[in-house]
């Protein structure tokens, strides 16, 4: 009861917390790019650029370089987002020249319908039969590439649950650490998943086993809450810190400047 009261008193909502955490991964000199349905990543990039990382290079929707949108629009794949860009990058011939190269666009911030204990992602099918699946998901799009091209991947998940965080994905649409340990490295792949930011916690990967690990719990969320909401056994360190909370200034920027229309809340189930 006091916990609830405590929560109500917060100056931020969970989407704002997640945006704040995500933004901390993007620094001056990094190049970031978003795809469709990516309100949280877009908010995180815009927040980083307004605060600690003014020199973060942003390629909106993989096409508009260094745009100056008034705010987050109703789609992250439409022209309002890349208004006032310094370059329109053609995708087939141009964008992939850079994206296939580990030197550029090193960090990707993406969502996935399923993630497993080794950070493998599934956006393809739920069920065992690829050609008659229980659920046909949208498809791998560019993520199937990014998982193998030496990128550092930052996943976001607004609905931390045993259905979205599973022991083994039904289908590997994007490579994480595969079966764990050195398996990814043995295939000649560098980079890989770095963190998973959910509505309950921040997760990362144990360096040796490559198993997903609890890095911090959001304020008001217990380790047991997180265990119960995860479809496999997380690595849980002895001390679990609380996730750093957004500053007043960050919250104000998100609400008043970056996303006054609240597009970021679309990704969260009504609750």
């Amino acid at each position, binding site marked *: 009861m006091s916990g609830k009261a405590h929560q109500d008193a917060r100056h931020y909502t969970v989407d704002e917390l997640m945006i704040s955490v995500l933004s901390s991964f993007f620094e001056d000199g990094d190049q970031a790019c978003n795809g*469709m*349905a990516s309100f949280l990543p877009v908010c995180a990039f815009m927040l980083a650029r307004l605060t600690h990382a003014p020199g973060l290079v942003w390629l909106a*929707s993989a*096409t*508009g370089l260094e745009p100056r949108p008034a705010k987050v629009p*109703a*789609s*992250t*794949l*439409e*022209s309002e987002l*890349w208004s006032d860009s310094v370059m*329109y*990058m*053609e*995708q*087939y*011939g141009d*964008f*992939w020249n850079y994206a*296939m190269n580990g030197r550029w666009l090193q960090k990707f911030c993406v969502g996935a319908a399923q993630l497993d204990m080794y950070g493998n992602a599934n*956006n*393809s099918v739920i069920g065992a039969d*690829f*050609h*008659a*699946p*229980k*659920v*046909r*998901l*949208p*498809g*791998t*799009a*560019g*993520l*199937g*590439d*990014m*998982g*193998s*091209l030496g990128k550092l991947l930052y996943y976001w998940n607004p609905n931390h649950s045993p259905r979205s965080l599973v022991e083994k994905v039904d*289908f*590997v*649409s*994007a*490579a994480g650490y*595969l079966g764990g340990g050195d398996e*990814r490295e043995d*295939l*000649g*792949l560098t980079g890989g998943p770095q963190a998973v930011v959910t509505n309950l916690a921040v997760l990362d990967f144990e360096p040796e086993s490559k198993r997903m690990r609890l890095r911090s719990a959001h304020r008001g969320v217990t380790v047991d809450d997180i265990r119960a909401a995860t479809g496999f056994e997380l690595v849980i360190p002895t001390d679990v810190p609380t996730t750093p909370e957004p500053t007043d200034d960050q919250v104000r920027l998100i609400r008043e400047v970056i996303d006054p229309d609240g597009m970021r809340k*679309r990704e969260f189930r009504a609750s």
Partner: protein
Amino acid sequence: MDSKVTTIDEAISTHVQHGDVVALQNMATQAAPMAAVRELIRQEKRGLGVVVLVGGIAVDWLSFAGVMDRLIGAAVTMEQFGLCQRYRKAVESGRVRVEELSETALNARLGAGARNLPYLPTRGLIGTDLIRQNPDNLRLVEDPFGGPAVVACRALVPDVALVHAHRVDPEGNVQYKPTTLWPDIGIFPKAARKVIVTAEEIVPSDILRRSPDRTVLPGFVVDAVVEVPYGAHPTSFFPEYRYDSDFHLAWAKVSRDDGAAQDFLDKHVLSPRSQAEYLSAAGGAAMMSRLRGEEGA
């Protein structure tokens, strides 16, 4: 340099055969050649394979209408308007078969097709199940110079590509206004055996000659040219008009219900006998000015 100008009816009946592989310009809610898509449905084409980077409402309709039985692409979704429910149902029932490719693998397959190479390599999707799932077209091969293995992506040559453009001349030279170019225009029409271009307007070549750097497709690869104002509606076509939210929402709302979905298709695809009638049914002048206005064009 004969004129290639024709009607959408004639273009589709002449150049698209049952069973063809059709490359469709498309993103989730962007720049799809929807007038051509509606004509495929009206002419009851069957057994088409559809190639998309990211399919949207076009793929949903083509799945529902029984026009396509396979998809080659990287994703299908209407983004903020949700998954394509008729496509989902068709795939989940086994009626539409999916060859799922990552973006670089799709680009490599089409790039090889365009360049008459048996394959092009990518280093994307190594470690994924997409390779195991698709041995006919994806194969891990060694680097002859001792470097890392690559995924060989077999050449794909679509029978026909459907694209929508801002303007085209009667010989088929295609221009876009200053805007971002979707990947489709970069490779789809180059890989395909035939190309049908719909455009907001057909203009004399002399207009194109004023800005030859904006021509993105040479007339010699184009087979048919059709003028279709608002030819991408209900998808967006920057900088002319944005996607039609109301239209997408209306479809999303009825699409799970067989009868209601059929009524929607009857009204918007089967009944209109012209682009003018289609636009009128979709909201007419008020709709058009709303879509232009909101874009701030």
